[in-house]
């Protein structure tokens, strides 16, 4: 009888012993800024998150976050690590001392990107001075290469976006940057604020041609999307996290849902680089000139 009971207890405990893996590891959350939709964000970043979990023996969980909610949710302590655009990184760096981990590489400028102001080539608009009184479309307000860079560029060229153009709009929903390009292409707007990367990708994909648009101006380059760590995360872990990212190559794969996926290709990323926080100063100057967060004054 006693033997039987012992056996039953052992049988009950067996699954617990066998399932040592992910659940026993420390759990941490990585907040990923949504570019277009939650579904797209998770599809892109879950394989990378799994790779980091395997490499660092931590159960990382990917949390999709809307851009405008990000600083607030991070301040509330929801995530240990963050993946955002560079402006949201600067905001959280200023306000919550977010630590720089690594910067994403994608497109012609590698770790950097830029914002361009475009018009249709046949529009008759040839210079930035010509955009006064025209209809303009920007990207979302917290997009450094879809709003801030162009807003700052216009101010530096003596054009006040609030006063000197007929009106400006910001597209709703997902794929906002493509909507900007198509909004200009199909003539709904005269001028658009497009990230240089989107123009590059759309040209490479054959969605537009280089001859469709005239680039009226382009901002200086500044860092692209960025991984950060909360200030109370163990420094050794931050270092290991950074190392895991910068060592990633196009050939690295992860076992994800029964498939071997290429980690970087799944996330639409060319690689990672360990930049310094001072590399973001160009962007800080832009935000100050444009009176945008985190330097906004009323």
């Amino acid at each position: 009888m006693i033997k039987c009971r012992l056996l039953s207890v052992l049988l009950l405990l067996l699954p617990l012993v066998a399932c040592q893996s992910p659940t026993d590891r420390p759990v941490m959350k990585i907040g990923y800024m949504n570019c277009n939709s939650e579904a797209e964000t998770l599809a892109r970043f879950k394989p990378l998150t799994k790779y980091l979990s395997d490499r660092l023996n931590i159960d990382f969980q990917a949390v999709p976050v809307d851009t405008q909610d990000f600083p607030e949710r991070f301040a509330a302590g929801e995530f240990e690590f963050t993946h955002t655009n560079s402006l949201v990184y600067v905001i959280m760096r200023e306000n919550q001392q977010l630590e720089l981990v690594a910067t994403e590489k994608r497109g012609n400028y590698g770790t950097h990107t830029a914002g361009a102001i475009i018009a249709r080539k046949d529009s008759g608009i040839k210079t930035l001075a010509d955009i006064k009184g025209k209809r303009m479309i920007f990207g979302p307000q917290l997009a450094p290469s879809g709003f801030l860079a162009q807003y700052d560029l216009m101010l530096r060229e003596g054009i006040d976006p609030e006063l000197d153009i007929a009106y400006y709009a910001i597209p709703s929903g997902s794929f906002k940057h493509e909507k900007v390009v198509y909004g200009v292409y199909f003539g709904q707007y005269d001028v658009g604020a497009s990230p240089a990367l989107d123009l590059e990708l759309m040209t490479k994909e054959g969605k537009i041609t280089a001859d469709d648009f005239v680039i009226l101006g382009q901002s200086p380059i500044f860092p692209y999307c960025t991984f950060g760590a909360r200030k109370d995360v163990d420094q050794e872990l931050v270092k290991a996290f950074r190392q895991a990212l910068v060592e990633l190559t196009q050939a690295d794969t992860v076992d994800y849902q029964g498939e071997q996926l290429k980690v970087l290709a799944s996330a639409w990323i060319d690689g990672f680089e360990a930049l310094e926080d001072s590399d973001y100063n160009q962007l800080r100057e832009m935000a100050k000139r444009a009176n945008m967060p985190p330097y906004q004054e009323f």
Partner: protein
Amino acid sequence: MLKDRFDILLGGLLLACAALIVGLLLGGGSQASQRDLAVDKALEQEIAYQAKVSFLERLYAPVSELRTAGQNEAALLKLDELSRRYPDEAHGELLRGEILLQLQAIPEATAHLARAVRMNGDYVDQHSPLSRRDLFEQLLGEQLTVIKSRAKKNPSATALQAALKDLYYLQGRLAGGCE
């Protein structure tokens, strides 16, 4: 016809002389034709090279025009478009490197310039119409110390370490080193 031994000897000598003359003529002719062939080959190579340079100029003319007009960003887009038809073409790599250099994307520019030289050594040949020795010397003069110091300060920065290697590679090629 051959009446005695003297006639036979004379006939034999005449035949030998004729054979010698024919042999000399044929031998001289073949040397001349070999010389002609060598000249033709060099000429063909020169013509092919000039045709290649001229083709590259024509192919990338829209990029050059945009750069001349100060439209570096549009020139990059034009290159993106051309790279769909001619991926991994050395001259496209070179132009991309030159443009990125002007736009201050230094590590990326260095990577493209070094790749262009690896694909086509003419860019470091001072006698080639494609030569960019001056550009490489200027790049090394302005960036080698800067990149070296930044790479030393930030050893995790893989792009900086790669840029430093590329700069050393260009330096070696300018000094006459091979692959």
